[in-house]
């Protein structure tokens, strides 16, 4: 009985493995499903690992294509009609800093990190595919003139970027969802991707 069970398990595992190996993963996906996230955790492709984080809502919410930030797990428009303002730090009378400080506030559930603000419109990622976002990140016309080294430094050292891995709790005290890989895995993936020439697949 045990032997039959073992054989059946091995066959099932083989079939499951085959299905994972033969399924084409679309690099043009604009969002990751939960299932794909789990696959990415298993991926040894630095580009996929890096983009799984970059396309997570913790990052995407502040890279909108419009003039209002997004918030929450469902990426709704920021409450109270909060606006981008001229420099991405909000309006003159009410800046991001009116509510967001340099660290998360567990009492109010307001997230915080140094220089909390929206990414410039040239760095809008909302609605773009994975490869389009990667191209945008590498485009010095859009990325603030950053070299690949600058991009690596931004992604692996900037406190606002790394806030995504310690996003705190919301107003109900519920922990915010974190990106699908750890901070260390993300940093390692970014550096490996850059060291390999910062290539974008199929390009």
């Amino acid at each position, binding site marked *: 009985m045990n032997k039959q069970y073992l054989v059946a398990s091995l066959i099932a595992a083989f079939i499951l493995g085959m299905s994972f190996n033969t399924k084409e993963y679309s690099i043009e996906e604009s969002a990751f499903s939960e299932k794909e996230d789990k696959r990415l955790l298993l991926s040894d492709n630095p580009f996929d690992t890096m983009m799984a984080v970059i396309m997570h809502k913790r990052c995407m919410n502040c890279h909108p294509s419009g003039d209002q930030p997004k918030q929450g797990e469902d990426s709704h428009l920021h*409450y*109270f*009609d*909060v*606006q981008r303002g001229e420099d991405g730090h909000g*309006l*003159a*009378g*009410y*800046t991001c*800093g*009116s*509510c967001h*400080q*340099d*660290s998360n*506030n*567990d*009492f*109010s*559930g*307001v997230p915080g990190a140094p220089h909390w603000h929206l990414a410039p419109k040239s760095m809008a990622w909302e609605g773009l595919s994975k490869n389009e976002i990667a191209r945008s990140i590498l485009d010095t016309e859009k990325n603030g003139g950053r070299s690949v080294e600058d991009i690596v430094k931004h992604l692996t050292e900037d406190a606002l970027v790394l806030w995504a891995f310690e996003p705190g709790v919301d*107003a109900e005290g519920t922990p915010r969802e974190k990106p699908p890989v750890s901070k260390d895995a993300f940093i390692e993936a970014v550096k490996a991707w850059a060291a390999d020439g910062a290539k974008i697949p199929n390009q």
Partner: protein
Amino acid sequence: MKITFSINGKQVSVDTNGEAPLLWVIRDTLNLKGTKFGCGKAACGACTIHVDGKAVRSCSFATKYAEGTEITTIEGLSSGGQKHPVKQAWEDEIVPQCGYCQPGFIMATAAMLTEIPNPTDQEIDDNIINICRCGTYYRMRKAIHRAADLKNQNS
């Protein structure tokens, strides 16, 4: 931890948990009750104060960040024995109904007028995003325009 800052022109030191909201220190330690607790989630704006002249929601401002700053609350908005133009305009237009949220609105308006001396209706809508459950927005809009006029006359 000991935290030292200026509040309404007076230097104070408080010994408190640095993570505690500044609103609690203002109300319970310094006994300045004009700043109100509304939602506790930085949503309604009833707790708005000025930190170095900028509007800040004190329920979401950890006291540790007050170190070395200049804090102004509704009690300290007027100076030199002259009523602040926003307070004067609020009285002139008889804005408050229940009044609970009004200190936050007045502080938010005062901060906005520093940056935008003659706000349009749209700029008022965009910058003054506090919440009033009595719905006094219409009278507040009139008062904000009046406050801008008074402030410009004074200057």
